[in-house]
């Protein structure tokens, strides 16, 4: 619980640093979407932010305990469909957990508050259906 809070504080510090120095919003889906739309600037904030995310993962995997998940493996089709929905949905809805959930809510954006409520609700509904109605992957 303290680790979760501390991790959240780091995310908040990252968002605040980006705002303080460059007025950048650290919304991952928005940044990725911008990079997919050429011409991507080779030295822009976005590309290097994404590079930092990947490099951070590499360093943690190299020097810290591996992150273990206890989930039963999901089918490839299930993963691909979920990925497509997240990619399409975050672009259509102008943001994801970071852009709406952290940056937008911190800016008191009504749009972000509504979006966060909606994706939390549909996410919880899908988990309810897969785990408690159709019991797809065992108890998870």
């Amino acid at each position, binding site marked *: 619980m303290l680790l979760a809070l501390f991790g*959240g*504080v780091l*995310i908040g510090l990252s968002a605040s640093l980006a705002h303080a120095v460059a007025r950048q919003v650290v919304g991952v889906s928005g940044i990725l979407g911008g990079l997919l739309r050429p011409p991507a600037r080779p030295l822009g904030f976005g590309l290097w932010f994404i590079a930092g995310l990947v490099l951070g993962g590499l360093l943690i995997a190299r020097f810290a305990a591996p992150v273990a998940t206890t989930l039963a493996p999901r089918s490839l089709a299930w993963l691909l469909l979920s990925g497509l929905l997240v990619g399409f949905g975050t672009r259509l809805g102008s943001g994801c957990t*970071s852009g709406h959930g952290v940056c937008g809510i911190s800016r008191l954006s009504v749009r972000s508050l509504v979006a966060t409520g909606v994706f939390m609700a*549909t996410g919880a509904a899908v988990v309810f259906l897969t*785990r408690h109605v159709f019991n797809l992957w065992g108890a998870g």
Partner: protein
Amino acid sequence: MSTWRSAGLGLVCGLVFAAGLVLSGMTDPARVLGFLDFAGDWDPRLAFVMVGAIGVHFTWLRLAPRFQGPEARAFSLAPHAPVTRPLILGAALFGVGWGMAGYCPGPAVVNLGLGLREGSVFLAAMLGGMGLYRLFASRTAERLDGVAQE
């Protein structure tokens, strides 16, 4: 701001963000699905990620005008923009995908660095979904709201 400076800033912000995502458990889909499982053995820990992140960022955004002058205010409060159908529909679709696998965009990117195969497969599909949106948006651009991406 020079391009090199903005690249360096991006890298630092990305590294700190990645550390936050891993430490908080957001990169572990089991934890995420446990958090969304209100009817089961609910794992409340990820709520503290939001508390920490919003607590720090909200506080900074309120303090920014004091340190950086009134110009910072324009970037601290969101403009009043309408809640639109694309916003609701997009968030709903995103939530469905999130609840299916337990990955949202940031953790999916970090999973690539962590070398976790499942998350990397998800990331590839997610980028495909973003590409699909570009095709869709270019056809219906005039019907979509022109609000900047959050």
